[in-house]
């Protein structure tokens, strides 16, 4: 009896992740996809066709004929959307590279730190998440604006005599994204560096490598799994980022998250914004699939 119960329980435990995936990812995605095939209407909800669940199968089929890919065609006709996708990907890629350049030395320093203070450093990386993300972005507005703290500081030490215009430019977005996603990059790199066998670096140095060559040819390749994981954790959400470009960016910055928000709220065009979201997901699925393969490969090589 207990065996049956435990078998049943383990089945149930396996079902939970699939049920979660179904209810919180697949079904919402299909709802979005279905709206993207509809047409806008001045109604509640603001699109047609709307299915009547009591209309019978023939009624549903009748209405399903109204579905069309017009919204996707529309996305290719207006160059705005293409530009927004491209500039989002570029901004996200630049930010990812900048985050990597800042995060790697930090993670490397953490991994080299004395064992006793490593848990404290790890805690310090996670701690900023305990203050609201939005408030931290607002703090950057106070720092970066023309009469803000950064310009006050730079002018008081006579580095500049004109305030730098950083807020409402792409630079502010880079700073915002790098700042917000830095822990996502530091943590995976740190965990791969910490696991590394440091006798390998010592061996490389003994065999005549310069410290830099030893780092570049031994340490860095061994931390590559962490680098890839960190880059994807930064790149994927940065492409669809809405809050940072909205608060720190200017009118010249075009990001797909902001375009989507405008379509959805200002234009009330749910079908087009759903089509934008569906394509955004497809763009992002490719790096995720690549990441999964890389991870699986790294795991099987490690065994």
């Amino acid at each position, binding site marked *: 009896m207990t065996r049956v119960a435990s078998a049943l329980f383990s089945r149930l435990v396996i079902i939970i992740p699939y049920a*979660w*995936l179904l209810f919180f990812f697949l079904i919402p995605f299909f709802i979005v996809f279905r709206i993207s095939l509809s047409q806008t209407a001045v109604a509640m909800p603001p699109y047609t066709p709307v299915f009547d669940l009591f209309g019978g199968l023939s009624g549903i089929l009748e209405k399903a004929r109204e579905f069309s890919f017009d919204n996707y065609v529309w996305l290719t006709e207006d160059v705005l959307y293409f530009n927004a996708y491209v500039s989002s990907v570029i901004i996200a890629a630049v930010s990812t590279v900048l985050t990597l350049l800042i995060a790697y030395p930090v993670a490397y320093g953490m991994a080299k730190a004395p064992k006793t203070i490593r848990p404290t450093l790890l805690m310090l990386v996670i701690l*900023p998440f305990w203050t609201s993300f939005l408030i*931290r972005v607002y*703090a950057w507005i*106070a720092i970066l604006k023309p009469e803000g*703290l950064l310009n006050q500081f730079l002018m008081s030490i006579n580095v500049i005599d004109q305030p730098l215009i950083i807020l409402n430019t792409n630079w502010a977005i880079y700073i915002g994204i790098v*700042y917000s996603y830095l822990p996502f990059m*530091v943590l995976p790199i740190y965990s791969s560096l910490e696991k590394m066998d440091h006798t390998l670096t010592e061996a490389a140095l003994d065999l005549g490598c310069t410290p830099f060559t030893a780092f570049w040819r031994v340490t860095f390749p061994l931390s590559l799994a962490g680098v890839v994981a960190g880059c994807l*954790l930064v790149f994927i959400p940065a492409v669809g980022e809405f809050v940072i470009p909205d608060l720190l960016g200017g009118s010249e910055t075009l990001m797909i998250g902001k375009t989507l928000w405008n379509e959805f709220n200002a234009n009330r065009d749910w079908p087009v914004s759903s089509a934008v979201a569906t394509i955004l997901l497809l763009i992002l699925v490719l790096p995720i699939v690549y990441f999964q393969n890389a991870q699986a490969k790294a795991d099987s090589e490690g065994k």
Partner: protein
Amino acid sequence: MGTWSRFNIASIVLGFGFLYLPIVLLVIFSFNESKLVTVWAGFSTKWYTQLWHNQALLDAAWVTIRVALISATCATVLGRSPHWRSFASRVFVVACCFPAWSMRRS
């Protein structure tokens, strides 16, 4: 590793400085007399007094704590997957990241 070079220490100090600068500034300017974040008008705890008398904000904080406790408990129960190494759980983890990324904002 034991060999903590100057470069390592400098990168940690700069990295954490970058990470904590906005938070430290927020704390400092919460004691500011003025309403502006950029102008220092003297030390005062008046914003904390105001917070203490703002019932709507205190209520909101209490709701936040309850939501956090309940969702953390549910997440712990659901997240305890027995087959962490299987492909399905990896897909699951990635899929869970989508709502997590969006929830982080609110």
